């Protein structure tokens, strides 16, 4: 049973991580044309770094099958150069009339978001199956 709850927690951690990926992709798309942020620079594309997170349980200490969750380790800024567009009338244009635009590629963000949404669904399905197993086990006590 403890193992099942561990599996449940692992799936829950994945929901958390995938939701963060969706949030980050959404803010990237929302700011695809933001030429000036709080620091005066155009918005930089953000990316989520995921890492496996083994759970520190009794089962793990015995070397038995145990759940491995996932964790958002950090959110990094993409250091690719900004896009540039010629628009001399823009208030953020430089001396040559070019405006620096965020290094966000909208189609790429959409693809990433779809992947995260599918992974989210898969983990919801997994949680449903684990929940079924737990309630099935509890039926033995009836």
């Amino acid at each position, binding site marked *: *049973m403890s*193992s*099942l709850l*561990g*599996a*449940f927690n*692992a*799936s829950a*951690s*994945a929901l958390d*991580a*995938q939701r963060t*990926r969706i949030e980050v992709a959404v803010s990237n798309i929302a700011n695809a044309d933001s030429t000036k942020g709080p620091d005066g620079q155009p918005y930089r594309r953000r990316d989520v770094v*995921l*890492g*496996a997170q083994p759970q520190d349980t009794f089962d793990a*200490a*015995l*070397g*038995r*099958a*145990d*759940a*491995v*969750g*996932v964790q958002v380790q950090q959110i990094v800024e993409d250091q690719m150069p900004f896009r540039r567009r010629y628009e001399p009338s823009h208030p953020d244009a430089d001396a040559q009339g070019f405006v620096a635009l965020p290094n966000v590629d909208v189609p790429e963000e959409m693809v990433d978001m779809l*992947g*995260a949404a*599918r*992974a989210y669904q*898969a*983990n919801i*399905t*997994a949680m449903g*199956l*684990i929940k*079924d*197993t737990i309630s*099935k*086990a509890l*039926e*033995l006590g009836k």
Partner: protein
Amino acid sequence: MNTITDGAIIAALGRQMNHAVARETVAASNLANLDTPGYRAREVTFSDTLDQELEQSAPLARTAAGHLGDANVAAAGTTETSGLPTRRDGNNVQLDRELVALSRASSDFSAAQTALAAKFRLVRYAINEGR
């Protein structure tokens, strides 16, 4: 050798349930790490589990120093799944494969649970003198 007793059947069903839970746990972990760079899909080491179960006739069999002496503790370790194509980020988890493994483990658990419940029902029937 092994006589078919209620105790033996109940213990065997319990082991099947433990094994199903271990498989379910590993599949859920693989699914959780679907997008973790460098993560390798794992699976329950079936042969070790089988060895352990074959040794059940000899009491208190231990295959590793960390195991408790109880023969009913199913010791299912895990190993990296081999033969899966690795993606560019070093991850080789396949969504459909893990979902199938998860449903299969869940069904196996249900099957064992149903049989165990029937077994318990018979015991209760005997306790109640057939009422």
